[in-house]
Every structure is written in C-alpha cells, then in structure tokens.
C-alpha cells in the first residue's frame, strides 16, 4: 500500500455526498426523454390500476348475452367479448392485478437475492462454491418452465405467484449482487471495518450494502420488466391470475380461440396494453441504468 493523503470525511459529509449523487441522478432522469415517456405511460396504467373501476364506463364483469362479440363502436370503444362484457372497461381494470403482483414479486426476489449475494460474495470459499453450484443447476431451467411446475403444484393464488416468482428471481439477482460484493470487499473501508473488529453481518449490511445499492436498483428495474413478462406469460398459460378477474393475459387466453372467426378486438387491445406497460418499464430501466452508470 502506498502512503498518500486520504482526506478523512466524517459520516455527515459522506451522507451529504450520497444524497448529492442521488439528486444528480434524479436531475439527469428528468432530462431524459426516454425516462419521461416511460414514466408517463406507467403513470397512466398506475392511475387505471387504482381508480380503474371509477374510470371504466361499464363494469368489467357485467355480462350482456344479447350483445356478444360486438365490434368496436361508440357504445363499446374496444367492442365486447364472448360474454358481452365491455372490453374497454376490462382493459382499464386489467392493469390492477399485474401492477400489484409484479412489483411485490420483484421486491421479494431482490431482498432475498441481495442477502444470498452478500453472503456468497462476502464469505466466498466453500459457501460460495456450494451455493454457486445450486444456483447454476437452478438456472439451467427457464423461469417459465419452473413456474409452470410450481404453480400447477402449489395452486394458483396471487400470493403463490408472488412467492414463486420471487424465489425464481433470487438466484438471478444473487449473481449480480455477488459480483458487485466481490469488488467491494477488496476495498480499504471493508478492511478497516474488519480491523475495528466489526462482525460480518454489520460489515455486510451496514458497510457494503449501501455501496452496492446502484447495481441492485438497476437489477430491480430490469427484473420488474421480466416479472411482468413471466407473470403474464404464466397467466396466459392459465397458471397465474384466475378468472373472472379482468386480466390482460387471461383475456387473451380466453379469447384467442375466436380470433380466426374475425373477433380481433377481443385480444388486440389487451395485447397492446401489455406491450405499452412492458415497454414503459424497459424505457425507465434503460434510463435509470444510463443515469446511474454515467
């Protein structure tokens, strides 16, 4: 080690520096058109999710067997489905379940993955090797395939979906966190904490964790988009959200059989809704990544 003058900062200055960086990142985001477009679309869907029943012109559940499979018109903007339910109302209210389940599942995966990643990266050695082998074996199975097995087994309630997706994401997030921790643990502040006699949990969670926060944030936004992807896919396979909930993927599954008969409006608007939601998240995650990594 070379002897150089290292300015010693007190904790207050360090915290101020951190919030300064945070403000900088935020300012950069507000100047990024990608972020603004993504955020506006997402905000619209969040408003639909919260106030959906109030905004929707009809009840998403109300059946009208005399007006089934009606093409879009001024009475029904997006037409009606096979039970005569208003597609426009179903698309609006359809944002609710996915916007509750996906963030919770991602949050669970991020918390668990961060803990596993911290342990693997901090202890290295045997812990890392053994857990790493399991992670690798686990990753050989696509999330959708494991999800199909788990959900067809454990039942199909929203809580089960959250737990299953959260656990499936854990190794993926752990891998990223581990890589970041491996770099951090070699730095002087970790050695200093060890010399002070701090315990491993303290060093991991109080010293290292705040410093690997940026990659964890990026990972969260990227995984959120993939959680939506995975949950909607499982729902499309009838293993996710259950009827009669208005859900985009569920509606597509229920109605794609009548598409060859020409009733395209019963799936197309749901498909566009999914596309706009996932694209908005990936625009946000792209710009967050850009802002954090400079």
């Amino acid at each position: 080690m070379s002897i150089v003058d290292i300015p010693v900062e007190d904790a207050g200055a360090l915290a101020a520096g951190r919030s300064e960086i945070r403000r900088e990142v935020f300012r950069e985001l507000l100047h990024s058109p990608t972020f603004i477009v993504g955020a506006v679309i997402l905000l619209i869907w969040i408003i639909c999710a919260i106030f959906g029943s109030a905004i929707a012109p009809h009840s998403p559940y109300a059946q009208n067997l005399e007006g089934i499979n009606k093409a879009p018109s001024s009475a029904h903007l997006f037409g009606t489905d096979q039970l005569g339910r208003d597609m426009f109302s179903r698309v609006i209210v359809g944002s609710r379940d996915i916007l509750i389940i996906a963030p919770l599942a991602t949050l669970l995966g991020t918390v668990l993955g961060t803990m596993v990643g911290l342990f693997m990266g901090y202890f290295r050695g045997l812990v890392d090797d053994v857990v790493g082998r399991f992670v690798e074996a686990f990753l050989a199975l696509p999330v959708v395939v494991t999800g199909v097995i788990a959900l067809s087994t454990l039942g199909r309630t929203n809580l089960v979906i959250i737990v299953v997706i959260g656990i499936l994401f854990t190794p993926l997030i752990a891998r990223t966190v581990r890589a970041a921790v491996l770099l951090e643990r070699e730095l002087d502040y970790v050695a200093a904490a060890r010399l002070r006699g701090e315990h491993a949990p303290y060093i991991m969670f109080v010293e290292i964790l705040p410093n690997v926060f940026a990659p964890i944030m990026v990972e969260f936004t990227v995984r959120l988009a993939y959680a939506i992807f995975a949950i909607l896919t499982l729902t499309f396979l009838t293993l996710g959200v259950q009827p009669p909930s208005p859900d985009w993927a569920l509606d597509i599954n229920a109605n794609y059989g009548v598409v060859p008969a020409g009733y395209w409006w019963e799936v197309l608007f749901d498909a566009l809704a999914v596309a706009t939601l996932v694209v908005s998240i990936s625009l946000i995650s792209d710009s967050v990544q850009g802002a954090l990594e400079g």
Partner: protein
Amino acid sequence: MVRFILKRLGLALITLWLLSVIVFFLGQVLPSDPGRSVLGPLAAPSAVHALDHQLGVDKPILTQYWHWITHFPGQSYQYQAPIGPILTSALGRSLKLALFAFVIVVPLGIIGGVVSALNAGKPTDRTISVVGQSMLTVPEFVSGIVLLVVFAVELGWLPVTATAPSGSGFFTQLKYLILPVIPLVMVLFGYIARMARVGTVEALESDYARTAILKGLPRGVMIRRHVLRNSLLPTITVIATQTGYLIGGLVVVEVLFRYNGIGLLTYNAATQHDIPMLEACVLTIGVVYMIVTLVADISFSLLNPRIRLRAAE
C-alpha cells in the same frame, strides 16, 4: 487445455446431478396421487393402492429416485406408454423451431449490435438499443397474438397453426413456422444486439484498434480484422445462455400455435399432473441447456488464446 475441458466436464456433471435431484424433488412436491389420477375419482381405494404399488410410488423416496434414474425416462401416466419415443419426436420438432429462430436472429442481432456500436451515441444507436430493449420485454404470446391477428386472420397470408400437414415439403414446413418464429426472434434480438454492441465498443476503444488506426489501416479493414474478431467471441457465449429463454419461449409459442414440441408436452404434463412425463421433459430441457452452454464455453476458450494459455499454466 485438456485439463480445462475435463474440469468443465466434471463441473457440468455435478450440476447435472444436482439438477436431477431438483427436478425429482420438484416432482415429489406435487401433492398428487398417481394411482388416483390414472384411475379417476370413482375407482376403489384398493385398486388405487394396487396401482400405486405397481408404479412404485409407495416406496421410500431414495429408492424411487434410484429407480427413476436407472429407468429413465420411464412410463407416462397420461399416454400409458414409454416416454422415450414421444419425448424424442417432440424434442426434434422443437429443435426445428429453435434452429429456425437462431438462423434468423443470430446474424440479425450481431448486425444490429455492430451497427449500433459503430454509431455509438448517435440516434441510430439509441433507436436500435431502445427498440431491442423494448422487444425483449414483450411476452411472446403478446407479439404472437398480434401477428396472428394481422398476418393470419386479417391478411390471410400465413396459416394460423404451426403444424404443417404431414408429408409437407421443406418450404411448406418453413411457411408454417414463420409466424411462431417471429416472437422468439423478437425476444432474442435485444440480448444478442446488446452483447454484440458492448463487445464491439470495447474492441473499438482498445489499444490494438488505435494502433491499427494509427498505422493507417483503412477503417473497413480495421473493423473486420481487429474489431469484429475480438468482439464477436463473447457474443457466442451470450447466444448460448439465451437457449434458456428460448426454451421458455417455446412453451408459450407452442401452446399459442398448437405445435407439438417439448414446450407443449411439458405444459400438458404439468397441467395434467403426468409426473414422469413432466420430470423427463424438464430434465431434458436442463440437459439441452447445459450441453449448449458447455459447448459454447469450450469453443470460446479454444478460440480465445488468453483463456487457452492461462488454462495451460
């Protein structure tokens, strides 16, 4: 080098064994009663017990695991037939679909990434990145259904299912596979383009690229000889790791387009609790993924002198 390959093979075998344990216990978690699900709800309890005994599901779990491994892949409950032939023909059909997807997406993704890198920071780069990133997150069933509506139903250019009539020629089969392949291509394009872009940007900023420029090589030659050779290597590995996503996508696309591949087989086995079939499918998927990544890993190190020489030390 031989030692490196042997080490990778050894690790792969350990991973494979762990995978078989995970898959087996996933199957065991299923709270199902095989005898009951084969015989139906009206069968007498004694008959159910007898069948359970015949299937061996009343034995201790380790005995069952051993029996499963030694008699792999075993008998399907649902088909009442050996799994092997059903699985191989489904796997063959899926490989056809997957190969078609790769043949389209690999050159497309690499071109996209390289064009992006050569225009780094310009609008072309931003457009390719944002479009790629967005396509990556659109689920296959969503793009699939839009394609179905537009090209199969409204325009009537392409068939609505993926399965060509039996005995069709090569090009007829391809025509049936075009629509199912596009959603897979869309998802994979983003990843491959991003990795090709990262690799190319890195190579462009390297010292050897600068030396090539300084010694007066034309830009085209510099890019072809110095940049692409180095940047495309990591892309191989990335393409291999995408096999997992591809298989996940196969499940959805095969269900949507009613194509009898391993994805549809896995899905049906899961929803109908055909546990031996499910376990066989899932293990096969895992093995395919591991073989592909292993081959990519080894060919990567064979092609890359830095790893080849370090391993020899």
